[in-house]
């Protein structure tokens, strides 16, 4: 059975955190976004992310900061569709790297929860990250993810009560997404002090479930810092920004993807020194 948890297990076997990279499908175009996702998996040196997070653009992205909003609004205006996420899954799967889709719930409900699970699993996808769907409303998703062997990655937050945190962790399969700060996506200068505590709280509930930490990580040093205590480091806006800037300046997608590869190199090196003596700087 395909599982995004395998990406975490493989990284753990190397005594390092996994690196998870987010890009929205359809920006700057569907074809270019597939190229960018493949580039995520190998940087400039053949070493890239361990898991690709495919973003599905949505008209009302309440958890996203300005960079990702900008990219997804552009993608929608250029005609991206839900079915393009299936193409993206096939493209990523062809590289041998696992992928998950990050999506607001209405798009999945509209496609049909079981139908999407079936088609996404067939395309080689591993699971869904659901920012606006918590276990409370997820009955259909439990059934569909069980039926099609997909991972359920729910979010936990610093504000989660102990009861809700336990319930959410038990409902996850594969790994859990820990939002390191109270806020939306976007690069930040400083990483959060709430993150280590949140990871520790998850570990108390389930020591075996991998914890990916996201929101605010933009460079290798931050990745090393987060990776010292988390099982995975999730990076989005810093990668998306290169593609947005290249698109807006008219340089073209190839230039943006080339710059993105060097950021991937920095992040991949960061997670590889996270637990070494020199550690995070």
């Amino acid at each position, binding site marked *: 059975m395909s599982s995004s948890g395998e990406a975490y297990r493989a990284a753990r076997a190397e005594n390092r955190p996994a690196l998870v990279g987010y890009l929205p499908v359809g920006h700057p175009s569907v074809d270019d976004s597939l190229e960018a996702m493949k580039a995520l998996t190998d940087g400039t040196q053949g070493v890239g992310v361990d898991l690709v997070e495919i973003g599905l653009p*949505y008209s*009302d992205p309440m*958890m996203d900061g300005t960079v990702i909003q900008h990219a997804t609004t552009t993608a929608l205006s250029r005609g991206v569709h839900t079915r393009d996420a299936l193409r993206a899954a096939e493209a990523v799967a062809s590289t041998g790297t696992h992928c998950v889709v990050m999506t607001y719930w209405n798009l999945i409900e509209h496609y049909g929860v079981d139908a999407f699970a079936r088609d996404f699993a067939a395309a080689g996808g591993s699971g869904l990250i659901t920012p606006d769907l918590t276990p409370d409303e997820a009955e259909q998703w439990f059934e569909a993810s069980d039926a099609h062997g997909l991972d359920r990655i729910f979010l936990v937050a610093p504000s989660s009560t102990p009861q*809700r945190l336990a319930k959410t962790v038990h409902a996850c399969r594969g790994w859990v997404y820990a939002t390191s700060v*109270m806020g*939306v996506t976007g690069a930040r200068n400083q990483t959060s002090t709430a993150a280590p505590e949140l990871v520790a709280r998850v570990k108390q509930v389930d020591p075996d479930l991998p914890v990916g930490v996201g929101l605010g990580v933009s460079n290798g040093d931050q990745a090393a810092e987060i990776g010292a205590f988390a099982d995975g480091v999730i990076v989005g806006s810093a990668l998306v920004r290169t593609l947005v800037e290249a698109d807006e300046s008219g340089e073209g997608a190839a230039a943006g993807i080339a710059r993105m590869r060097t950021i991937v190199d920095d992040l991949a090196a960061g997670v590889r020194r996270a637990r070494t003596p020199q550690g995070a700087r």
Partner: protein
Amino acid sequence: MPDATGHFDQFGGRFVPEALQAALDQLEQTFRTAMTDPAFDAELDDLRRNYAGRPSPLTEAHRFAEYCHGARVFLKREDLNHTGSHKINNVLGQALLARRMGKHRLIAETGAGQHGVATATVAAMLGMACRVYMGKVDTDRQALNVARMQLLGAEVVAVEAGSKTLKDAMNEAMRDWVTNVADTHYLIGTASGPHPFPMMVKQFQSVISAESKRQIVADTGALPDAICACVGGGSNAIGSFAEYIDEPEVRLFGFEAGGEGIATGRHAASINGGSVGVLHGTRTFILQDEDGQTIESHSISAGLDYPGVGPEHSWLAATGRASYLPINDDEAMEALRILTRTEGIMPAIESAHAVAGAMKISEKLTGRNGEPPVIIITISGRGDKDVDTALKWFGLDGSVDATTGGMK
């Protein structure tokens, strides 16, 4: 209804990030406790009377009734409230809850500015910080309301994301709330959004029907035959219906903004022209494309220009307890003209949809025991804010009809 987790059968619920769940639980708990606390009730009642000017009158519209096929027509005068609309009912209640939770900052979304002004008003009264999010398109066309909010001490932030309208202002307010939830209350202006907002806003707006029920029985000796209210998100309508939902002989009519006509695709009629989906934290009827992306709504009335509707309205529509009909821009503007000319009451364009609706449904409405039917129309707000739109619509230019007293 709703059930313990905020569902009206398949509608409603709570589709928001985990980061907000604890705040929504706290809000629900605070609300439920307040509802059983006589001190809360006493303070809210005092503010309603001595600050907002309640109870609002129930005015019989004798001359306008000539346009309603022999019915007796009563107007529930929410237009006479402080700040000019029913919005004050909800903000007073929620602001008191925010204070009970120890939160000293209010944020709100607004389209035309009515809810933003109401929120800025209570923030000033209670000495709270206030920030209002408004789509860039709306700040450009509602500069007067932007200035009103600023005079009240609120900070107004224009939202340039997405379609730059009310729905995007709501997204931005939600992002602010996720970031600042520890000290901030998001004061949602309509009977939609994640549980417990639909239930709570209904409770605070139900003062409309609690009063009208007493008033109509005093005036006519019986319950009315029909209630008419306009529906955008649906807060004045759910408040106007609330006390009659369990009175099966009272028919409930909600009027959605049909814009240029549902067939044109340029409308804001989520129930009549939309489908079931999840938007802004709740499952309800919404306007969406074949992928589930939200479609922009269109209405001459900024207050009804929203691509969703409160989940309880979806449920009342699905069960058949209430009927929802579209009223197009031209019908609403004609009703605005007629009510203004016959009664000297200029309704907000939102409320004019309910006026037009009453003219329509009265044709087939029958009274009880051979009496003429009795209709209550909620005039949710006054039309002062809409004079600009009316000038353009009716082709007026502000020039006089004649000049006198000059010496040639």
